[in-house]
């Protein structure tokens, strides 16, 4: 897109020209004569300092970057092929691993998981039998009642009378 030129009066043009002359004086501003004498040494010092301060991770990234930049297309193809083969190998191994049910030997059939809520979930053909016995917890009163009922129901067995003295030989 062409920039549209702005029309100005001759006075304005002269004022602008004078201003531009004044602005050009800035070209003459420069640091002292000796300033540029040691800038190169200070640049080297700064680069050394930066290198010393660079973290190990930064250095690693720099090396990685340099490595990638040195890679030719042939090397990329070779690296890509190795990576693909490795991924394929890992995938096959993991498939085989999950197919055998973890750390068991291939000759053992896998065991089905057993659920406590549903003991029948264990595969019956594998001969696994799970019994869950529920033992109710009784309070002291209930226990006493049950004991008295048990005593009534069970036949009396002869035993020593509490007041009878034991026989002495």
């Amino acid at each position, binding site marked *: *897109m062409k920039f549209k030129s702005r029309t100005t009066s001759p006075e304005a043009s002269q004022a602008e020209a*004078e201003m531009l002359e*004044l602005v050009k*004086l*800035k*070209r003459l*501003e420069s*640091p002292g004569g000796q300033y540029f004498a040691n800038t190169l040494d200070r*640049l080297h010092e700064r*680069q050394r300092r930066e290198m010393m301060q660079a973290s190990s991770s930064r250095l690693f990234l720099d090396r990685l970057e340099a490595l990638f930049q040195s890679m030719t297309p042939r090397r990329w193809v070779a690296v890509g092929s190795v990576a693909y083969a490795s991924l394929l190998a890992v995938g096959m191994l993991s498939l085989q691993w999950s197919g055998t049910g973890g750390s068991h030997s291939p000759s053992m059939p896998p065991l089905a998981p057993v659920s406590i809520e549903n003991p029948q979930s264990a595969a019956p053909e594998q001969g696994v039998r799970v019994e869950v016995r529920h033992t109710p917890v009784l309070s002291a009163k209930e226990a006493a009642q049950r004991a008295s009922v048990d005593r009534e129901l069970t036949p009396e067995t002869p035993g020593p009378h509490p007041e009878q003295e034991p026989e002495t030989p």
Partner: protein
Amino acid sequence: MPEDYTDASDESLVEAAKEGRTRAFDELFLRYQRRIYSVIYHMTSNHEDADDLLLETFAKAYRSLKRFQGRSRFYTWIYAIAVNLTLNFLRKRKRRTNLSLDELDPEGLENHPLLEDTSLVGDTLRRLHTYEIQEKLNKAFQMLSEDHRAVAIMHDVEAMPHAEIASILGVSEGTVRSRLFYARRQLQGILGDILR
């Protein structure tokens, strides 16, 4: 015997520096440090800041040299690094504090040939102390926005063509011309009292 790169082209120096020959990069630094310092100084109006940004510019250029593809000239590339670093610095400084006049560089225009000139500018130079003119010029530039200042410095002080400025700033030539127009108009208003 150290290699002599004095007559080498920029392109060959860049290639040599990319291969790790630090002397080649040193030659590029010696070749362009004054011009890079100049643009940074005019944008910041402060010698210490310009000094720091000059070294930072070349240190960054050295780190990024491998990414330089040679699509533009080395000078344009490093100039763009300098201008962008300076613009970022100025934006941060603006947030932190306003520029104090005490920070302005006291270096003068002592023996300028315009002192012998009979024009209005020559008369202005004779009337005012050079330090005063310099201070007013710097103050006027600091009153422009960073983007307008960058364009005015590059075009009116550094005499760079519009196309190169556009390439450095990553904007269109029309944008450069528009910014230059508004920057000049503002400068005229600010510097009007010096000229009359």
